[in-house]
């Protein structure tokens, strides 16, 4: 399994490079073998189309080229040249002799330089692809013309976008959306991880600059900084992995057990019971989790009940707590266990839903014959149900693990504002014992404007998730399986 998915991953990466290679080869042969107009298309994008009397297309390509040149002159060149330094001029009030007033100078904004330079790079990259693709297309036109084939009119070209090129019509907007709202932002934050963008270097009043690998060094404990990021990172990472492990497996096993319980023939009114369990997850998490957090608050109802039945006193007597209440969500250890327990509450119904769907397809003849042979329910569970579940939902288990690494809601809604760390070294780097990497990076950006460290942590989270996903890669994109029933 592991080997197969690794091959799948290599094949996928290889596929991407293969596609790029073929594209470059097409471009090369087009330039080499094309006629004068194809070569002229390298300079004037519309040339090849004009030669084949596709005047509308020629006009569109010329307009695109003009647009790109104007973009470069009037926009990109304001920012890209400063990309290397990220700006040098700080904002200052300067006395203007003409208006006799103090006015702001023409200062640099490091963030805008970074953002718009990146934007320019993306536009240029797109421009280069269009430019190359254009030459390839024009060369194809030339071949067609030489072979005496029919050359499409503009109307026919348009029509091809609901025919064989329909996928372009379908994909353009979604891919544009993903580029603008996911791809470019991710690139931007990867760049930020190599700068010193933090509260002391906030544009527009201050500039920030490139910082090399310093952020990574301080995250891994080097650099001799007074801020103890290395210390906090190891602990937060440790808890993130422990959390993801327990959150995934407790709910997974629990969900299977619950669905077996509910699907048993002994169950009366199974639909009603199932509905009752689903109610807990149908309520939005910000309601249910905020509620539970107050339920278990230091002065909350559960603490009152525990005090009344003497549990609080008992725990104090045996030395488990030193306070007059049980610090369910406000002390290390207690909070860790409670978070995992509350997650079981919220996670098991989900897994129950999925497990129910899968178990309906459990080969019942196997279960029957095992029962006839006198197998105990536990044996059936261990030798038939679980292997089958693992076979079907194994890859989903990995996805769940990755999702739990990034499970922001549970941790944030349960502990933000309730849990304060007493560990000074953690507090110095704005971390808490119950933080996941994602909640930590969220706090770093929202409350402390420490974007450089947040971005660095983000990259680490990505690497961790990527490593775990490698194992599930094949299944996730459905390689090899998708055509089974077409």
């Amino acid at each position, binding site marked *: 399994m592991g080997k197969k998915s690794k091959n799948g991953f290599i094949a996928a990466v290889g596929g991407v490079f293969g596609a790029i290679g073929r594209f470059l080869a097409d471009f090369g042969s087009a330039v080499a073998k094309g006629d004068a107009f194809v070569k002229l298309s390298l300079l004037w994008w519309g040339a090849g189309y004009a030669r084949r009397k596709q005047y509308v297309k020629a006009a569109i390509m010329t307009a695109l080229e003009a647009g790109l040149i104007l973009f470069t002159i009037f926009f990109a060149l304001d920012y890209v040249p400063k990309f290397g330094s990220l700006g040098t001029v700080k904002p200052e009030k300067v006395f203007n002799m003409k208006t006799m007033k103090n006015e702001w100078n023409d200062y640099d904004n490091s963030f805008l330089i970074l953002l718009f330079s990146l934007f320019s790079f993306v536009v240029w990259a797109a421009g280069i692809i269009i430019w190359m693709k254009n030459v390839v297309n024009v060369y194809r036109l030339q071949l067609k013309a030489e072979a005496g084939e029919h050359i499409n009119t503009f109307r026919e070209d348009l029509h091809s976008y*609901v025919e064989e090129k329909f996928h372009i019509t379908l994909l353009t907007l979604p891919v544009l959306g993903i580029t603008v709202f996911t791809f470019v*932002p991710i690139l931007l934050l990867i760049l930020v991880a190599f700068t010193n963008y933090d509260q002391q270097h906030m544009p527009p009043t201050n500039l920030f600059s490139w910082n090399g690998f310093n952020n990574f060094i301080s995250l891994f404990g080097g650099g001799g900084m007074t801020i103890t990021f290395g210390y906090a990172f190891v602990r937060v990472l440790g808890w993130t992995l422990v959390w993801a492990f327990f959150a995934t497996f407790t709910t997974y096993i629990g969900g299977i057990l619950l669905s077996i*319980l509910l699907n048993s023939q002994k*169950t009366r009114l199974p639909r009603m019971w199932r509905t009752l369990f689903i109610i807990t*997850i149908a*309520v939005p998490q910000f309601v249910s989790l905020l509620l539970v957090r107050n339920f278990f608050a230091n002065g909350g109802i559960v603490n009152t009940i525990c005090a009344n039945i003497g549990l609080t006193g008992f725990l104090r007597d045996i030395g488990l707590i030193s306070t007059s209440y049980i610090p369910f969500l406000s002390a290390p250890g207690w909070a860790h266990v409670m978070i995992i327990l509350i997650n079981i509450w919220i996670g098991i119904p989900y897994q129950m839903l*999925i497990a129910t*769907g899968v178990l309906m397809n459990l080969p019942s003849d196997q279960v029957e014959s095992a029962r006839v042979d006198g197998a105990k329910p536990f044996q059936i569970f261990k030798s038939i149900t679980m292997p089958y579940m693992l076979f079907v939902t194994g890859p*989903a288990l990995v996805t769940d693990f990755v999702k739990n690494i990034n499970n922001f809601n549970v941790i944030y809604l349960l502990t933000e*504002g309730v849990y304060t760390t007493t560990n000074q070294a953690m507090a110095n780097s704005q971390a808490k014992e119950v933080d996941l990497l994602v909640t930590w990076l969220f706090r770093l950006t929202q409350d402390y404007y420490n974007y450089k460290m947040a971005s660095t942590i983000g990259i680490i989270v990505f690497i961790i998730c990527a490593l775990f996903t490698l194992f599930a890669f094949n299944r996730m994109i459905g390689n090899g399986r998708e055509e089974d029933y077409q």
Partner: protein
Amino acid sequence: MRKMKSNRASSIILHNVLIAFLAFVWLIPIIWLVCTSFSAYSGMNTSTFFPREWSLIHYQKLFQPDTVQQFPRWFMNTFIVACFTTVISTAFVLMVAYATSVMRFPMRKPLMNMGVILNLFPGMLSMIAVYFVLKTFNLTNSYAGLIMVYSGSAGLGYLIAKGFFDTIPRALCEAARLDGCSEARIFSTIIIPMSRPIIVYTVISSFLGPWMDFVFAKMILNAGISENYTVAVGLYKMLDKSLINSYFTIFCCGGVLVSIPISILFFIMQKFYVEGVTGGAVKG
């Protein structure tokens, strides 16, 4: 014989009692939510499970907005954002799913692989950067910003819908193509009408997105203007340490009211959710 029967009966009773007990444990917080929302006392009731006095007054208060609490307004905000998000997201998801499932073109696999890689980055990470971009263009604290955040990258969540399209027999499309049907017409008049389950699933899940989300809304709506909040952010702010004593019961009322429509939609959706997550895997 009789002994066996009674044995069986007692095991059935035990079995059902166990389920009832678990269901009860699972429902305690929900019961507490509903009960507390009918309390006459505004703060959190810490001494008894059930409120001492019952009253509907906080439901009335919920519809009399003050400076902190503007539930009707929040509800409208979320509703408007959710409607736009639904239209855009559903269109994006179906388009990407159809293109990657039914059509064959050279960039298909590379694009899908890119999607997998992009999905591995925590959504939070790109959102932080999106926040900057939106701020640069003055789009934070606005409907437009929220709608973009919720629906901009919707195309990445195409896998479940693709799984569904994968199961539609290709012969159908081939036949239509032979009859001279264009790809666009195959999509709009053959595939879409056949795909009601997955459309319902996609519509409901994208509609629920803005209702269930808390993080992104909190990030984008950071100006602290109560009028702009979505339900999630508004209810969260009500539980601020300084406010919780006068607003906890109202929070519960709001929680109940917002949970009812969401739960109904969720119940409709979960049927398709199970099919979507497990369907492809099981049949394979």
